């Protein structure tokens, strides 16, 4: 029996966390008031729903899907068509409920397509979702009445009657709509993990054979989970349609599906809150990083590779491991190693980054001259000095990093064994 510490009659810890989450959602646009940050916050809300819905498949069901954008994207299309119907007076539902339309659409398509995809699990499942995604994307270029061809479908969210003066004209009103949906959807998806279905889904991920033996149909469990994920994905898509007021074929594309997978994994698929971190990173990467450097996709791919190899639990697992260390009061022993690790890593990455940026500069905008601005320094992409300097910085960083890493690995191992001992001691004490 796992000892779960519970306050009675209320689980105070849970109330505190959820209230804090609501508070952050409410206060965020008051702290970051610029136009750019409000748009980014709105996109983060949407991405949080999308990544969490993706994690129902990846993290909780062990289903690696390469086609999640199909459900968010088709949800977007249905929502924008419904929005246009509302503007045209053909449909009479409030704009605030349009994301639900997207959600129902996403669910409908998940019912239809999920029946084929969830017949398999593991690697074949991944390939089939890829095939279905390609199918839908190829169709989007074919049926221009529904998908709007190259130009996409656009709409105007100021439609229908204003409700208490809320017209959704200003971005801030849309943000709060998204915030409400985000809060409700995150709560619902968390609740889903606690249901018997959510639990059996975890069992299907870990050991499908035993689940079959205790009398469950694993295929049906996967199918139902897929439909639920499709519903939330559709809500994210519907919110996206309201936020951008335009939907193009790119929303069902492979790039979008890949991004959901990448960032859900980076955030951490093994913990419920991991995808939230991933979603926030996704928007930061798409909006800010892509402005900062041309090589951002390369950096992203490399970070992903290293993450899969060295921290398969994503950022969330790194946080949880350090929380465990902190809980046992051992963080003080290790913070110097962290400092060394961080500093040497920065030196190494600065050198490598300078070289990558110079290559990109030579390849893409050599017409603008030979100089590159990188972290405050001006480098000449065609001079030997810059190259030699960057290589020197990188190699020095690499050498020092390796030293720091060895020290860190030793410390970390010691602390972990200490913690194991401590846990055993406490168990015997009880």
């Amino acid at each position, binding site marked *: 029996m796992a000892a779960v510490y519970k306050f009675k009659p209320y689980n105070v810890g849970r109330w505190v966390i959820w209230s804090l989450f609501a508070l952050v959602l409410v206060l965020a646009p008051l702290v970051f008031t610029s136009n750019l940050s409000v748009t980014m916050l709105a996109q983060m809300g949407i991405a949080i729903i999308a990544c969490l819905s993706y994690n129902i498949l990846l993290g909780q069901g062990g289903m690696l899907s390469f086609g999640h954008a199909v459900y968010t994207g088709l949800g977007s299309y249905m929502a924008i068509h419904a929005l246009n119907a509302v503007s045209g007076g053909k449909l009479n539902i409030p704009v605030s409920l349009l994301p639900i339309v997207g959600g129902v659409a996403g669910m409908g398509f998940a019912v239809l397509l999920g029946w084929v995809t969830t017949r398999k699990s593991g690697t074949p499942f991944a*390939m089939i979702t890829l095939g279905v995604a390609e199918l839908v994307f190829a169709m989007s270029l074919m049926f221009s009445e529904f998908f709007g061809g190259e130009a996409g479908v656009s709409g105007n969210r100021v439609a229908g009657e204003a409700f208490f003066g809320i017209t959704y004209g200003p971005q801030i009103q849309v943000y709060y709509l998204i915030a409400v949906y985000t809060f409700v959807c995150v709560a619902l998806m968390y609740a889903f993990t606690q249901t018997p279905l959510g639990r059996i889904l975890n069992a299907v991920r870990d050991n499908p054979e035993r689940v079959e033996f205790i009398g469950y149909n694993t295929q049906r469990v996967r199918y139902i989970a897929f439909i639920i994920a499709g519903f939330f994905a559709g809500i994210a898509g519907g919110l996206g349609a309201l936020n951008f007021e335009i939907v193009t074929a790119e929303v069902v594309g492979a790039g979008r599906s890949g991004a959901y997978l990448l960032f859900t994994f980076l955030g951490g698929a093994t913990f419920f809150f991991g995808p939230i971190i991933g979603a926030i990173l996704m928007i930061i990467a798409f909006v800010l990083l892509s402005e900062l450097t041309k090589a951002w996709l390369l950096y992203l791919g*490399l970070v992903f590779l290293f993450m899969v190899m060295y921290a398969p639990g994503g950022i969330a697992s790194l946080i949880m491991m350090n929380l465990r260390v902190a809980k046992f009061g051992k963080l003080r022993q290790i913070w110097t190693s962290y400092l060394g690790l961080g500093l040497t890593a920065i030196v190494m990455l600065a050198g490598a980054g300078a070289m990558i940026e110079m290559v990109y500069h030579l390849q893409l905008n050599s017409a603008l001259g030979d100089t590159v601005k990188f972290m405050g320094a001006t480098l000449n992409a065609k001079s030997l000095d810059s190259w030699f300097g960057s290589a020197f910085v990188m190699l020095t960083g690499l050498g020092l990093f390796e030293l720091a890493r060895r020290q860190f690995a030793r410390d970390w191992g010691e602390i972990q064994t200490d913690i194991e001992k401590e846990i055993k001691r406490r168990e015997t004490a009880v």
Partner: protein
Amino acid sequence: MEFFIISMLNGLSYGLLLFMLSSGLTLIFSMMGVLNFAHASFYMIGAYFGYTLSGWIGFWPALIVAPLLVGACGAVFERVTLRKVHPFGHVPELLVTFGLSYVVLELVQLVWGRTAVEFPPPEILRSSAFTLINHSVNGLSLVWGAAPAEMCSAADAAVRVVCSPFPATRGFMMLVALLMLVSLWLLLTRTRIGLVIQAALTHPEMVESLGHNVPRVFMLVFGAGTGLAGLAGVIGGSTFVTEPAMAATVGSVIFVVVVVGGMGSLSGAFLASLLIGVIQTFAVAIDYSFLTLAKDMGWALSAATQENSFAKLTLSQVAPILPYLFLVLILIFRPKGLLGTREG
């Protein structure tokens, strides 16, 4: 008739190219259980290596050296990353190759630019392998190489002559693929290393305890599989177009091939490659829709049906989705795949 023959040959050559890719993918999958998501990326690297090397040492040496280099890259990748995540299970392995496909795409764009490069086939392959001449009086005849102009035009206006050339690159593609197929089959069934590979497929522990280095066999298989992709890349790149999008175009189709053929079945992959190659080539060439069909049949259609975008779609417009439709149908009616043995 000549349309049928030429389209059939085009389809077969495309199918054989697909097989060059899917054979490596199947080999790696059945051996290590790893679905190499970056397989098409190795195909792309092969094309670009071939492009660069053929500028330095000529096409024919590049045809041999580029696949070897690609295979070496693949083996190094297996050694450095895949072997590390192997204990974590199949999903992380798939994710590593997925990440690699991003990195390779960016690196290729970094080194060779974002637009297509000009990678022409060598002089000898630029002409046609043979030409079919359909003479309305003399019937069908075949001329090796390009047909002289006077054979393709008749002095008499009443006589209709149609010349259909078949490009030599396509013929070369078929030749290489068939050679590869035969040598792969001989290697797997007739040689010692082939027997070790086959044994390591099913009983890795046993093979290991008999003194063979199974991880090294895995590395070799991965290198060989990616090398085959590289070979396909050199040929495909010079026949079609060498651009950063080439991996994405062919990548999803080879996954369809592997699932349709049956996961891990080499003969299934062969059959599925040819089927999909032929179907796609024919579909692109046929300009039929429901509307033309209805007209030919003499059915009366309402005005609304005639404006229906679904009915107006021609088969050539539908061609890109046919492989995926095929995939869905196979999964519904034969989940194992055409020649597959394993379920699930």
